[in-house]
């Protein structure tokens, strides 16, 4: 269960950010922003190999006391960043991966929509629903 999910475009501006509302959202926005540096680091580290072979799932970007940040980058340099609560230890790596996969699938569905201009903010209800399903259920 993520606490915050963000989709960042290639130029490093956000396409979509959604946080669990009860938290201080600004904190998460900041966290996501700083995590972009880590993402870039990881990308460049892998960059030696061909882009194709680069692993899309970046794994744990950095942990903090309260939460962990995971990253995922697509072949078109669109980044997905997910912040999860550290206390939620039951979340396994596999599940994070599958969450990212779902995100990626939904993202491609959005791209398929001719009414969506790449680079626009993501306003799709279907995407929202999917993200909601992944977010922590907070009453």
């Amino acid at each position: 269960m993520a606490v915050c999910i963000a989709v960042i475009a290639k130029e490093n501006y956000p396409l979509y950010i959604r946080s669990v509302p009860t938290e201080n959202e600004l904190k998460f926005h900041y966290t996501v922003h700083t995590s972009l540096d880590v993402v870039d680091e990881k990308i460049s580290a892998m960059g030696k190999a061909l882009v194709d072979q680069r692993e899309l799932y970046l794994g744990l970007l950095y942990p903090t006391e309260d939460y962990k940040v995971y990253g995922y980058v697509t072949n078109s340099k669109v980044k997905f960043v997910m912040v999860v609560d550290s206390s939620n230890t039951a979340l396994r790596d596999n599940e994070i991966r599958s969450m990212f996969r779902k995100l990626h699938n939904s993202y491609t569905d959005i791209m398929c929509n001719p009414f969506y201009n790449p680079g626009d903010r993501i306003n799709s209800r279907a995407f929202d629903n999917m993200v909601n399903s992944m977010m922590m259920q907070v009453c």
Partner: protein
Amino acid sequence: MEGLTLSEAEQRYYCDLFSYCDTESTKKVASNGRVLELFRAAQLPNDVVMQIMELCGATRLGYFGRSQFYIALKLVAVAQSGLPLRVESLNTVKDLPLPRFVMSKNEQESRHTALYSSDADNPASYSGVIPPPPGRIQVKKGSVSHDAVQQRTSADQQESTSPVVSPQQSPPTSPHTWRKHNRHPSGGNNERPLAGPGPFWAPFSEAQPGSSASSDPIWSGHSPPPHQENWVSFADTPPTSALLAMHPASVQDQTTVRTVASAATTNEIRRQSSSYDDPWKITDEQRQYYVNQFKTIQPDLNGFIPGSAAKEFFTKSKLPILELSHIWELSDFDKDGALTLDEFCAAFHLVVARKNGYDLPEKLPESLMPKLIDLEDSTEVGEQTGEVGYSSSPAEAPPSKSPSMPSLNQTWPELNQSSEQWETFSERSSSSQTLTQFDSNIAPADPDTAIVHPVPIRMTPSKIHMQEMELKRTGSDHANPTSPLLVKPPDLPEENKMSSSVKFTSGNTVNGYSSSDSYASDPEQIGNTVTRQRSHSGTSPDNTAPPPPPPRPHPSHSRSSSLDMNRSFSVTPGQQQTGVVAYPPAVPPRPQPSQGPGPHVHRPVDAEGLIAHTSTSPQQIPEQPNFADFSQFEAFAVSGVNKEEEDEIETHSEVLQVEKPSDSASSLRVAKADGRVEDKAPANVPTSAGKGTTPLAPPPKPIRRRLKSEDELRPEAEEHAQKTGVIAAVLASQPSIPRSVGKDKKAIQASIRRNKETNTVLARLNSELQQQLKDVLEERISLEVQLEQLRPFSHL
């Protein structure tokens, strides 16, 4: 109070009115307040109202019971038609129009007023058009009022009566729609409302005066709104003056509409009445219209409209991009960026609905789901076509999706292959959405692997995929290369790969074994798929493993027919062995420890192993000379059911060597078989014993017998091992029997008979096993489903 006979339409109408007035839901008494309102709405002079009330007996009773209410309504109708109010007139007046009520504006009624007041277009458009009744009932009312309409001579009256039926007329518009119309300044400017719906379609229409008629397609198709409260046809009769005012302005449209609409009336009625219960259903004429629009963009009905063309087209509807985007998301069912005919119709329908004020649903309604069938071009509804049309330049001949599809599909399998191998079985879904998995951990797939279409063999069989296979087979007949169809095959190899990766760490040997999930598939097919899969898995270079169970020595090698009777009898005993061996359906490939990891790998997947073994055994058995199965059989006979494969294999070799030689061995085996049988299926003992005692019998026979006994045992033990044991037995017996062949004709005939019996037994066994397999598969599927459900994102 005299009895009152009401026509059916009247009956229903009055019933509705009564329930409307029955504010307290007593079902017996209409609340006075409401009734009085109603009567006021009837626009009758007060004294007439008083008269009515007196006549119906309410003044006597002090309340309006159902019968009083009905009588009152009838009297209202009488009064409105200008006839003198008499009690006798209740039953004598024929063809009385339904009473009309002008509602004042309170919340609910305002809707209706809007409905009716409206927009002269409505009455105009629908004079004569009986709209889909909110409740079926109203169809009749419509027809009644239609008659009434025809009785009237004055246009005014026609207009005024049409509002009566307008609830039915107004295309199933929901109150939303009507509110929307109401927003049009219907108050002062009566022409405006008429034009109201017009502008919606202005961009689309080709400047035809029949714009209101053009609205027909919009409205006629819409079934009554989901909310049907108080659809009791309260009609708001526009003040006659207003009507008159409207009249000249709208007369043109009205006439146009009338002429146009009247022809379509009956058809519409019927069509509408059939679809009113589903607001999202597309009526025939709507569908026709959509199809025609589709054709303007893409002449091939089985082709696709690419996203860009669709975007242009729908942008013309002037809906906000956000909504169009949402409509697209809903209607692009297969998420491929292009619209098939069904998807296009769904999208168009949603656009139409949205323009009429329906809110867009969150999920695609069922009636709009695209079906994978070809669309028939039904007879065109002349009025509908041409009136509304996108003045669109027919899009660039859509680079028919077909050519692009295959390439897309080919990329999918590659992507699929690269899907994480760590992914568990449950993660995999057969929806097209999983196709977009780009995790590129794997080396680029070689071209072979991309070709996955033909044989839908799955590593892990499931009913879903069996169905997909069916679909694919049927789908290949369609000219329609809809992606859902094409999507499926990619899924299969994906799944094959996935399951293989999950379950089998080793290479293809296992793939080979577990590849054939479809019992129906030809052995050759299986072999082929095995080959293919070997290339697919790509992880293990040693795919060569057990060369796919020999290219079917028996081309027609189905399980039941694997008992090659002819061969077994015509060929020398030694070979009969082979034939017989081929026979038992479920004999697993176990007999070949030489097949490397196979047996070991199988162990972990016992369940599948059973399946796999059973499926592959027929192919492998013929080829396996070692027939270590003998030993297995012996082992079982000796030690009871031995589920350990290794043990079996070991005992195979041991016993094999031991047992090979002699008749005595065979009889020994027979005895053992008997022993086994006694343990579990005493019934067979006599037969097997009998069999065993006829060494002269052609080899198959005693073997069959053993098989038979085995058969009995097998279902309980579900042990492929046992089957191998059977084979072992068979094989074992064969070397020992060679001499007996052909010696005794009688014996041969007897043995033939017995063989036939064995045949049937084995066939039965086969079907039982198949059934078992199916059950196991079902279980598996359900477990997977459960696992999937339990595998949440919620770990809380």
